[in-house]
């Protein structure tokens, strides 16, 4: 894909997808930051640490986003401290909080839906297929 086409794609995706997509994504001009300032004591993580982690994760954060991420990650880490307050003396290490076991069914062939039944409620069809609007360009 040419650079210009790729740039259009980045621009078009910026408003829709989550920002954990691949490659650098433009920051606050395209994606207004919605998290306000958070009051609190000393942060659990510094802005420099967040900047470093964002570079390692190949995420391009704007100044405002860096600020917001520092606040949000700080709050998450503060929450983790809450868990540390629970007395776990005499409790065995565990992978789950409750007892669980897998549920299996018999591996047996059973009749499925007939093609006509599966297509019965389709708004549009093309013989044996569903007909849907074009996703990429003109049909």
């Amino acid at each position, binding site marked *: 894909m*040419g*650079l*210009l086409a*790729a*740039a*259009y794609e*980045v*621009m078009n995706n*910026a408003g829709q997808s989550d920002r954990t997509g691949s*490659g*650098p*994504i*433009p*920051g*606050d*001009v*395209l994606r207004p930051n919605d998290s306000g300032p958070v009051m609190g004591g000393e942060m659990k993580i510094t802005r*420099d640490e967040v*900047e470093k982690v964002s*570079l390692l994760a*190949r995420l*391009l954060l*704007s*100044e405002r986003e860096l600020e917001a991420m520092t606040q949000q990650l700080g709050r998450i880490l503060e929450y983790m401290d809450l868990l540390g307050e629970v007395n776990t003396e005499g409790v065995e290490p565990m992978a789950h909080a409750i007892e669980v076991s897998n549920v299996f069914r018999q591996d047996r062939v059973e009749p499925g839906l007939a093609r006509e039944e599966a297509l019965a409620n389709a708004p549009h069809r093309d013989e044996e297929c569903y007909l849907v609007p074009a996703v990429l360009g003109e049909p």
Partner: protein
Amino acid sequence: MNEVLSITEAAEKLEAGELSPTELLDSCLERIRQYDERVRAWVVVDEEAAQKAARQAEEEIARGRYRGPLHGIPLGIKDIIDVAGLPTEAGSPLRRGHVAERDAPLVAALRRAGAVILGKTVTVEFACFDPSPTRNPWDPSLGHSPGGSSSGSAAAVAMGMCLGAIGTQTGGSLVRPASYCGVAACKPTYGRVDTEGVIPVSWHLDHAGPMARRVGDLAALLEVLPPGKDFSPPLPAQIPEKRFGPSHPPRLALVEELFAEGTDEAVRDATQAGLARLLAGGATVEPVRLPEGFDRINELHSQIMAVDAAEYHRDQFAAHRDQYGPLITQLLDQGLGTRAVDYAAALAHQRRFRCRIDQWFGPFDAMLMPATDTTAPATLDTTGPKHFQAPWSYLGVPVVSLPCAIAYDGMPAAVQLVQRYHHDKLLLDVARWCETQFAFDRRPPLLLE
């Protein structure tokens, strides 16, 4: 004062009396003391003269005699440009202790505008290719190239050791170091800035121009820089009516062949992110093809540069060959060995191209492309290749480069904008619009220490 101000921001505060020139100078001197041992951007800092100039600016402003946006602004001057009373050593042992008697006209003009000349910034040897001791402050381990040849100017501006600097470009010596170091640069129209009092590399290719953190700063600097003696300003009829303006985002042309197609992935990704912002801001971007014969320019540029440099260094090179670095030695040997007829052919090609390049710009407000093929190389053995910048030095058309994003290797990436001759001001306006869309306001990690 820890905040690194742009010239425009500082000028507002200085004029309003919220900041004094001596406070501003002290903040620069403090950063030089704190970081220059590691960054090595300065050859000499004339603290005493700078303090005297800052005090004078302070008195003038207090008396209501404000001279304009450079009044009280500390600047660095590349060490191939004469500053009266300071050495012009050009990064060469052959120039050691060579003190300039008078200011280059461009330095005198900056002083008249009230600027505080802080000292001389490091250049690579005779502004050619052998790397200088300057380090790139964007790499915490200081192992990346700052680019060249105006390496000290770029690093000093990036670190807030001065608010702007004057550099020169024969191939890519303004745009490349500025891009590697995350600051903006302007290589103006050929002849637009006087190069008297500047040690030449090539009479046919040399340009002097400003570097700063913001495009508005470049405009303020260019405004006061004087034109060369033989510079003929354009006839009014040659300047078309300006289309681009605040209510009309620019129409840009993206140069893909040789440029956008010739980058590594880091620069490609960053350029793509920058382009997306320009599109989101309402710019029209269309791909364009390069004019025929453009692909020969880099080779011919090298030929002209080599012969012109050899002409200037001829006697000194013959007498002191052992005191020249390996890369400039190679350049001068190439120049001395070039046949006259090949040199003439290169000059003829340059002249023909200069005559017909105007039409290539068509209806566009600027031609856009990445400023470098990679981000700053992770080595101190090279200042990077010149092939992305040299064509515009060869053609003499104005260029503005500005950082657009941090690439995923953590180093800044930049785009360059090019326009037809004499349209420096329009180009700066377009670049300022792009700067607003990029919203690039990152600082080198070293400054966070």
